[in-house]
């Protein structure tokens, strides 16, 4: 322990150096985002609650009830009952998504051949009642308003590059 160390130790140099760091944080501007007042915009690839896209003109759902998303879902939370319209086009009569089991992995969006189901930027999903987590087809269609902005510009619900 040379003399230099004794002097440094005596003068609390290392402790003062640590305090200088917290001192600078004291004056530097703060990083807190006060959540309910200020919100952060998620990135375009953020995987929030799902949404069912509809054709803008006819308002029909793009989904053709091919059951791909229901089979690929690792936690089996998509339940679809298919049906046929008058002119023979198949569509989902009911499309239920059990958000209580969903792990937000995005596989359903990735495998959908017609880009009907898309992960939106909706992350405020807290509810008091577990039944609200049982998303019905209407809720999913209404959730289109939260679809990522960057996505809308590319016509058919995103071309997979997203």
């Amino acid at each position, binding site marked *: 322990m040379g003399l230099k160390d004794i002097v440094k130790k005596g003068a609390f140099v290392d*402790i003062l150096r*640590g*305090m200088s*760091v*917290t*001192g600078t*944080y*004291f004056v*530097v501007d*703060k*990083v*807190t985002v*006060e959540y309910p007042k200020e919100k952060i915009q998620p990135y375009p690839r953020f995987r929030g609650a799902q949404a069912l896209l509809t054709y803008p003109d006819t308002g029909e759902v793009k989904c053709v009830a091919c059951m791909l998303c229901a089979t690929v879902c690792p936690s089996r939370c998509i339940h679809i009952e298919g049906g046929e319209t008058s002119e023979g086009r198949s569509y989902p009569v009911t499309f239920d998504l059990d958000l209580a089991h969903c792990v937000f992995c995005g596989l359903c969006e990735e495998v959908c051949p017609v880009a009907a189901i898309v992960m939106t930027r909706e992350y405020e999903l807290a509810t008091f009642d577990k039944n609200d987590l049982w998303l019905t087809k209407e809720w999913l269609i209404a959730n289109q308003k939260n679809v990522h902005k960057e996505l809308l510009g590319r016509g058919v619900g995103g071309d997979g590059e997203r």
Partner: protein
Amino acid sequence: MSDPIAQLIFLIIKAILVPVLIVMMVAFIIFFERKFAGFFQGRVGPTYLGPWGSFQSFGDIFKLLSKEDLIPAKSDKPVFRLAPYIIFLPAFLVMAVLPFGPVGGEANLFGYRFDYVIANFDAGLVLFLALGAIAVYGVVLAGWSSNGNFSLLGGLRAGAQMISYELAMGFSVVGVMLMANSMSLVDIVEGQAGNFWDWYFIPQVVGGLIFFVATLAELNRTPFDLAEAEQELVAGYLTEYSGMRWGIFMFAEYVNLVVISGIVSTLYFGGWRAPLEVLDFIPGPIWLFIKICVFVFIYMWVRWTIFRYRYNQLMSMGWKVLLPLSILNLVVTAIVVSVAG
């Protein structure tokens, strides 16, 4: 009105005014501690209650009042209830000897002499040390009576820590007594009259540093907050306390903080004296208030930066480093004072 009755009235006024003032200060210091803790860590701290969150401490108090006050079945109930008050009272009593303005001067209020100290006790410093020792009982009894593993460990640790650091504190304070050759705080402040280079901090640098470190241990603040080390002992001696009873412990800790910063500024930084002669027109209590705030800020700054010592390191530092140093400082001061006359 003859002199003794006036003094009695003044005494009653002071005895009510000073504690109320200290309690108000403590309420805001609790808020400032949370706010400054946030600033030190680069975040904002409480902001919802009141402007910039300033009513946060009142929110805390109401929350604690509404919380259920559990008393563990197997605990030693009378002692369990008594412990918080044993810590709470000594902190308040020390205020009696703390001078916050000129004492024994000419008649300056309604024609009677108004002393700016509640009790001009000529052994004030010894009273401070004695009351510090009583606080140890509160902590040890709290830990012992909660009858739990963690609280027992916390209580014993706190007891051993406070006792070993009181020694170092006692010796370092004697240096100041020698400089002012009196044990009364009023005379110590008199001895430091003049500008800031007359203060005792300059000659007593080693003694002052030791005293500051020892008060950190006395207050159970961060480098030595082993008693309620939440990382290891869940909450040390405070584990079983809840509701307002826990609140009294916290309140006592902060009253202690204010009072000890008052003592530090009185002993080493010239109490209510202004740093420069020319600034004397600002009244005494204001200076003392400013110095207390500066020291409270330094205590908080230390708390949010430095880690915690391990138990045996703490003890070895107390006995093997601080004690010999303070005795050495005492001997040197004694020689200098006796030679310089």
